């Protein structure tokens, strides 16, 4: 294959050396020095081409000058680079926003080559030529790195947004009206349709080659002016830390008290006193304790930290076991976060008697979505301390509860306790699992373990909330019950990666029990099947099988 011929053609239609190299070379070509790379690829640089190149004054007809050496020089004059230089970071990235006409021109050249050099195009796999944006980075990354003294990294949260435009962009994009598939019933809509970059790319990816070459000039014309820089803006993306927290206090809320809320809490639920069992003054919250730790260990401004968790527990409810998944968003980027700092953070926060954090780690915007989106679908495991308010033997009640088979469906009207801030409605909720246990030495209380659908109001499920939750556990066992204490011991959200958290022992035993239960069901159904079979054959064998469960 004669590459020289293609090269000659490319230069004659006004391609810059990097655009030529995009087609002649490949991803691994050295784009920093395109002339040298081209010399290596081509056996002979045609003499008249070398002359042409020297004379060449025009702006590249495909990249509109983006890949020409004059471009970075102009770009680096922009003041945003100074801000990047001064920012405390090791890395940065560039987001390039190019006008849509470049994509049209690129496609036009692509098609032109396909028509003119079909063999070459097959050999080179023309649809996989390095993209202009990619080549831009390959070409100038080193130059930019040296200029700002930092390393280019796609994952960096420190970014320069470079927006480029071209004088003829609007005019050239007009052609899209012909390529777009027009719905004639919506003519009016099309008359005013704006062809932004995304729409253009979308149309270009769908349009067939014939239609394209009918409306777009092949090869692209040499432009009268190069593209220009519309803006360069400096932006830092927030960073995210993920982890889990446990709360051991029954008087600490997740988020700081709002004005006036303390008065409310005095009467709140199962709390007899606000002062705390050791007379500690509770004005803090889980969030404040964690934010203080972050400030102390990482030096972040407290105002720049935003906390989110997968749900929340009432202030009088503990959260134990592996804890509740949460993340913090921090509007400040520091260089790097060594692993030890996260362990240090855990250590610092865990000094608090009320809160611990585990599994602290760096995460990202995408990953934290999991915390919020699944919030309503996550099962929760609770331990409750229940009170029998009628003179009935507790063993009998425990027994009755443990005889409940399968899951329970309950309907909960918005509880009185939250009716002031929630819409009023009735929601069906599933209690997947329930087990009661007597507490040796106590005849009025028992311990309850429950696995519930997210959003279940557990306290109300126990006592019935004036009949607004029906059936309640009280209804199910026909005994008035109340709830003395409640702990969350598991939240069914496998995020973030476990590092040092450990599940509550009861959670493990439920899992085992559920597995056993399922196996039993399976065995049972197998047995009933075989029983009916056997029944027809031999009654004596049947007896033997029925005895087995004993």
């Amino acid at each position: 294959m004669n590459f020289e011929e293609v090269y000659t053609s490319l230069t004659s239609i006004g391609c810059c050396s990097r655009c030529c190299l995009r087609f002649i070379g490949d991803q691994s070509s050295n784009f920093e020095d395109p002339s040298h790379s081209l010399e290596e690829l081509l056996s002979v640089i045609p003499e008249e081409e070398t002359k042409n190149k020297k004379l060449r004054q025009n702006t590249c007809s495909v990249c509109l000058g983006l890949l020409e050496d004059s471009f970075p020089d102009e770009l680096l004059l922009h003041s945003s680079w100074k801000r990047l230089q001064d920012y405390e970071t090791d890395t940065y990235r560039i987001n390039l926003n190019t006008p849509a006409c470049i994509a049209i021109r690129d496609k036009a050249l692509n098609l032109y080559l396909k028509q003119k050099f079909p063999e070459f195009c097959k050999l080179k796999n023309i649809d996989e030529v390095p993209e202009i944006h990619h080549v831009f980075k390959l070409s100038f990354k080193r130059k930019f790195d040296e200029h700002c003294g930092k390393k280019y990294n796609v994952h960096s949260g420190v970014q320069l947004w470079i927006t480029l435009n071209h004088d003829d962009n609007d005019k050239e994009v007009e052609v899209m009206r012909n390529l777009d598939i027009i719905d004639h019933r919506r003519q009016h809509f099309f008359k005013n349709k704006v062809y932004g970059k995304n729409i253009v790319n979308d149309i270009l990816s769908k349009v067939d080659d014939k239609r394209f070459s009918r409306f777009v000039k092949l090869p692209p014309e040499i432009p009268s002016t190069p593209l220009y820089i519309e803006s360069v803006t400096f932006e830092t993306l927030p960073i995210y830390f993920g982890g889990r927290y446990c709360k051991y206090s029954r008087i600490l809320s997740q988020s700081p008290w709002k004005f006036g809320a303390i008065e409310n809490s005095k009467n709140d639920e199962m709390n007899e006193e606000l002062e705390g069992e050791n007379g500690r003054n509770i004005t803090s919250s889980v969030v404040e304790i964690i934010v203080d730790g972050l400030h102390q260990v990482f030096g972040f401004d407290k105002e720049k930290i935003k906390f989110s968790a997968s749900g929340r527990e009432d202030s009088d409810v503990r959260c134990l076991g592996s804890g509740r998944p949460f993340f913090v968003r921090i509007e400040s980027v520091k260089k790097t976060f060594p692993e030890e700092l996260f362990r240090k953070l855990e250590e610092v926060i865990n000094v608090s008697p009320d809160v611990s954090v585990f599994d602290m780690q760096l995460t990202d915007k995408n990953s934290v979505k999991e915390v919020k989106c699944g919030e309503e679908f996550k099962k929760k495991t609770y331990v409750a301390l229940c009170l029998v308010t009628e003179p009935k033997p507790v063993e009998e009640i425990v027994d009755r509860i443990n005889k409940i088979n399968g899951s329970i469906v309950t309907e909960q009207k918005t509880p009185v306790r939250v009716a002031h801030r929630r819409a009023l409605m009735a929601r069906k909720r599933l209690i997947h699992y329930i087990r009661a246990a007597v507490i040796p030495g106590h005849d009025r209380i028992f311990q309850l373990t429950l696995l519930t659908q997210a959003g279940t109001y557990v306290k109300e499920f126990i006592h019935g909330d004036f009949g607004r939750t029906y059936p309640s556990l009280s209804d199910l066992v026909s005994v008035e019950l109340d709830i003395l204490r409640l702990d969350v011991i598991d939240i069914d959200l496998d995020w973030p990666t476990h590092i040092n958290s450990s599940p509550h022992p009861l959670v493990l035993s439920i899992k085992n029990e559920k597995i056993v239960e399922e196996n039993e069901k399976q065995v049972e159904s197998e047995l009933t099947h075989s029983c009916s079979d056997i029944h027809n054959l031999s009654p004596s064998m049947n007896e033997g099988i029925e005895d087995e469960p004993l």
Partner: protein
Amino acid sequence: MDETNKHIPEIHEIDNIEKKISNFLPYYERGFHKVYSVEFSKDNFYLDTCISMYSNKICLLFLADGHSIIKENKTIKSLDFKVGKEDRLANSVGGKCKRSAQSLHKNSVICFIETTDGMKYPFCAGIKGKLLDLNPVVLEDYSKMVTFRNTKGYVAMVQPIFQNKREIILKGLLNRQDYENVLSSRK
């Protein structure tokens, strides 16, 4: 793990647990504060409403102990929720801010209670606010508003409207002690 330096008590490990249990208020009293309205009573016709206000200010309205129906051991025959132009049963409440809820004044009638002896007693709100909900338990079995007048026998759930301070809205309402005094003076 540094976890070891924290003692996490079991859920039932509570100091003075017996005392706590005996002092533990039932859920229908925890966080509730009861006030009484007697101003609609006339002669020997006692129309007392008990307003049980939760710490979030949401109120549950009950027949109060001194109501004629209770004092005279009457049996409820029917409840009529058509009050003037309004049908309380048609009350619908939208969203967190309780749009379109029927508004109640102090002397608004929630329903008329008819007893088997043919008497009709208006049941008044006693507090200004929005009608949030009627109790389906009571709608299904009227007698429950008498037998469960502390627990699940509330008639209506109301969100009071406060102009300034809660004192204003509670003006004219009696606390338990004052209400007891009124009751003993009725004999």
